[in-house]
């Protein structure tokens, strides 16, 4: 048993610069991929909920665009990211006659495109969950689709989908590990190298397992804090009532909800 812990400590002590580099790239790719994916999701969400134009030509363009988005979402949601990585990376090399994309950017591109497909559905869900009356109200005061989205719908959507976005981020931290098939030097890639050098499979992967957990756990806690912040304070005061302008209704702090 002490031998085992010695092995684990040895692995960390000997290879920590590479483990740190792996953590750096894993977090960079996961963060950039999630953010770009969210932007893709927002863009496709706004486009897909846009009412069809009266102009025949624009209407055709809109339908075409909606079709492309639907195909994109279905294809990238319906195939494994590992396969997408191989197809995009080597497909690009075949298409350009041998030049390959630099590894880290291609990792970010692959994760972004994949996450974008999920985000498109998350954002769409977020938009249709907003009460129809708000769209009608915005239309009544003469807002365009873009104005409605920017000033009324998207701020609410963003708050509502934050838990799902956080979920995607955590999934991405773990899923960057599949990028080792094209040689991206993320955490799992270094685990493979350390394993081959030390012949200590279990010990190496145990170290990496703990690192992944610390990463995802920290991220979920931070995002939970942000969520809480956006919710505002639990106890607040409602000032004034119809009969008495000086009335104050105090809403006390609620009991903690279990399983929160």
């Amino acid at each position, binding site marked *: 048993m002490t031998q085992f812990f010695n092995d684990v400590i040895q692995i960390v002590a000997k290879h920590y610069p590479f483990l740190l580099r792996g953590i750096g*790239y894993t977090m960079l790719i996961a963060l950039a991929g999630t953010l770009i994916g969210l932007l893709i999701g927002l863009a496709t969400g706004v486009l897909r909920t846009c009412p069809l134009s009266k102009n025949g030509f624009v209407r055709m363009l809109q339908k075409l665009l909606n079709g492309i988005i639907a195909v994109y979402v279905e294809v990238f949601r319906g195939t494994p990211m590992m396969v997408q990585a191989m197809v995009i990376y080597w497909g690009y090399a075949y298409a350009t006659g041998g030049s390959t994309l630099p*590894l880290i950017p291609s990792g970010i591109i692959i994760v972004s495109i994949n996450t974008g497909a999920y985000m498109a559905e998350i954002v769409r869900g977020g938009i249709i969950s907003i009460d129809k009356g708000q769209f009608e109200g915005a239309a009544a005061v003469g807002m365009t689709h873009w104005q409605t989205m920017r000033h009324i719908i998207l701020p609410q959507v963003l708050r509502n989908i934050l838990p799902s976005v956080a979920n995607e981020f955590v999934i991405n931290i773990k899923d960057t590990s599949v990028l080792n098939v094209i040689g991206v*030097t993320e955490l799992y890639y270094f685990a493979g190298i350390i394993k081959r050098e030390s012949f200590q499979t279990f010990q190496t992967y145990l170290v990496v397992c703990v690192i992944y957990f610390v990463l995802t756990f920290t991220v979920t806690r931070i995002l939970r804090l942000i969520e809480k912040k956006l919710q505002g304070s639990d106890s607040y005061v409602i000032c004034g009532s119809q009969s008495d302008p000086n009335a104050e209704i105090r809403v006390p702090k609620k009991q903690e909800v279990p399983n929160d």
Partner: protein
Amino acid sequence: MRRLIALTLALLMALSLCACGGEAAKLDVSTAKSIADLKGAKIAAQSGTFHADAMLQIPEVQSQTLPEFADLLTALKAGTIDGYIAEEPTAIEACLSDESLAYLHLVNNDTGFTATDADVGIAVGLKTGNELRDQINTILDEISTETRSELMNQMVQLSAGKEVTSLALTSEAPANPTGTLKVAMECAYAPFNWTEMDTPSVGAVAISGEGKENMYANGYDVQIAQYVANKLGMTLEIYAIEWDGLIPALDSGAVDAIVAGMSPTAEREEQIDFTNVYYSSNLVVIYKK
């Protein structure tokens, strides 16, 4: 009553599990003199290699393939297999690094596996029609058999962590390189090619690519690639690519050559060209003492 039934069922399941464990009695492969003696053994090999095809020559073998070579050793140590197939230099290296391992001294086409020279030799892979092939063949043929085995011996020692001061095969780097020779290998198949971190051993070459700083490749393949590049008057660049990505990398033109302990088998010949063989060895079976 229900609780009683559940308890009985649980007990039965636990018992059947124990029975399974008992059945997997270890087959003693250490006394095997030929592959016929391995009848019914649990043997593993790396998938997508000639080893995996050769494995099926063992009578009634309980075969298993794993995508990565290093995982075969893990499976052996965990006791899930009786042995795994490797080339002799790899076996010597593994047994030097780990005293609990040993290997069966099988000889191809005699006590060991039936194989052609192309199956057990390793050659440089080039894109079909590459004009460098004849030049590389001339360079490879100049390396004598003694030098080859001496170099392999040194690489086995080096890979097992022993000290080696000077290499058997050396060449001068060209003063005015005419270009770069991009070479792909796994960097995960000692003693043919492996990865080193931080401190490069004698003759090691830095691995190219983003995020690969302070990583070096060394091994028999690296030395051959370095020699060929120097003799061609080119600078060597080494790319670490997964086994299954090697042929796509070559096909697409991302690299110029594969020097990865790859055998010029008939199936691969259909996709890419191979040079003459630059090393050949016996296929053996590594087992736990």
